[in-house]
């Protein structure tokens, strides 16, 4: 295998790895949007919450002789609790009394609250986190793919397929789809709307905790604002895939991951150094603008005259 090809394939794997993280986060955005038509801008910060829980609990878990990734369990529990509390304490009262704009502003406020709350407690500087996975890398000749890359991609796929099966075939999953389409008819079927919304937040926040595990496996650093950029990119992924669509979130996340990774690797060479890899974020957000102009409903989206 020549070195060019080796580099290309490893960039593809890098893209799929970060893309899996975006997909998991995008699922949270898209499920919540689907059910209450709210862009939960605090969703990215749930990842940060998960990462701090990982940082705090991993040493104790290692001390107990268990592998560090077991810390994802307390991270999931805390993230689910934070997600459900944010919904019950902030979004639900606003939803019942205000309009979609008040809810959106509340979401931005919750994001700021979480970021600044974390900063007040943990300080603004980056903190390192213990290695969560120690898996040997896989080698195909000159091609080395790290174990955590493969694990992240596989885990991401398993979760996404599992979630799709859950909403397609289980009673609760069908109720989620029913509520996201028609609340009035769902009530008449005997669906409890509030508990369905709570379940949606719980699943989305739990996925954010898993995403934080994957993220810190790749970039072992934690900071109060780490979720902001990650959340925004996942939001772009959700819009690209078609907000409200679960398969769309997966496709959007993987696409954004691949675009980002390949841009970072090749844009400098392709444009003869005019555009450097430092522009990769700009390109991701450029995609958002293009999608909104060309196909606002996204790849898998249903055409609805709904706005943020």
């Amino acid at each position, binding site marked *: 295998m020549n070195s060019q090809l080796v580099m290309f394939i490893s960039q593809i794997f890098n893209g799929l790895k970060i893309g899996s993280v975006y997909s998991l986060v995008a699922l949270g955005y898209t499920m919540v949007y689907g059910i209450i038509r709210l862009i939960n801008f605090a969703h990215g910060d749930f990842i940060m919450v998960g990462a701090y829980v990982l940082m705090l609990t991993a040493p104790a878990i290692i001390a107990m002789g268990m592998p560090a990734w077991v810390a994802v369990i307390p991270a999931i529990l805390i993230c689910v609790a934070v997600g459900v509390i944010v919904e019950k304490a902030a979004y639900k009262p606003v939803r019942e009394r205000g309009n979609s704009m008040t809810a959106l502003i509340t979401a931005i406020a919750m994001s700021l609250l979480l970021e600044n709350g974390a900063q007040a407690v943990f300080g603004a500087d980056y903190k390192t986190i213990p290695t969560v996975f120690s898996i040997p890398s896989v080698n195909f000749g000159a091609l080395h793919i790290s174990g955590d890359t493969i694990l992240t991609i596989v885990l991401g796929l398993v979760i996404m397929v599992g979630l799709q099966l859950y909403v397609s075939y289980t*009673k609760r999953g*069908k*109720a989620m*789809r*029913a509520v996201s*389409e*028609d609340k*009035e*008819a*769902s*009530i*008449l*079927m*005997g*669906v*409890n*709307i509030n508990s369905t919304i709570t379940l949606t937040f719980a699943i989305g926040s739990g996925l954010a905790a898993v995403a934080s595990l994957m993220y810190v496996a790749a970039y072992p650093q934690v900071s109060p604002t780490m979720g902001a950029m990650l959340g925004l990119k996942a939001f772009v992924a959700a819009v690209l895939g078609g907000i409200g669509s679960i398969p769309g979130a997966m496709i959007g996340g993987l696409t954004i991951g691949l675009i980002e990774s390949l841009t970072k690797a090749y844009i400098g060479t392709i444009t003869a150094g005019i555009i450097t890899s430092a522009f990769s974020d700009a390109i991701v957000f450029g995609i958002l603008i293009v999608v909104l102009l060309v196909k606002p409903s996204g790849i898998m989206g*249903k055409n609805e005259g709904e706005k943020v």
Partner: protein
Amino acid sequence: MLDIKDLKVSYGAVEALKGISLHVDDGEIVSLIGANGAGKTTTLHTITGLVPAQSGSITFNGHDLLATKSGKIVTLGMAHIPEGRHVFTRMTVQENLEMGAFSLKDQSGVGKGLERAFEYFPRLKERRNQLAGTLSGGEQQMVAMGRALMSNPTTILMDEPSMGLSPLLVKDIFSIITMLHAKGITILLVEQNAKMALSIADRAYVLETGRITMEGDANDLLHDEKVRRAYLGA
């Protein structure tokens, strides 16, 4: 038996129902007729708790419906087929029907319920895997009716089941309603198609701007001069 006493409902400053009383006995078909905006849909929405009442009472087989959470009313044996059908357009026909059985504690009855719904509406069986949003209006009405039947209701509230349907389909839908009646299901029917509604009903009420202005035997109302002039175009 469904019993409504002195029910008042307001949307902000607008009084939609100004104190109506009506009852539906077990096994009856009762029609509620009236013009647009008379309060027919509001009446049904208040019964199933989609709209809060201001005062008055609604009891159903001894249960105080105004004190019952709207999502729980279907478990008391009352199904509501809303105006405009409200099928889940992005779910298949079968999934729509399964949603109708959501409130059943024992989900093993779902298969039987599906069979029964397909007996009433054979067309739905052919289209069971099709998305409900791709069906015609008449087929969607069948989905809405089949879905309501899935909860094994003793009483069904129907809101404008004939709306937007061709005369042929209207006939079909009304013959299904009579069939359900023959099986002992109690029906409260809201209709703008007053002639059809009165011809199949036992009793009827006429609703005018939030008040019940006439009530009685459906056949008598069908031949009443005032009703004929106002609602039957004769």
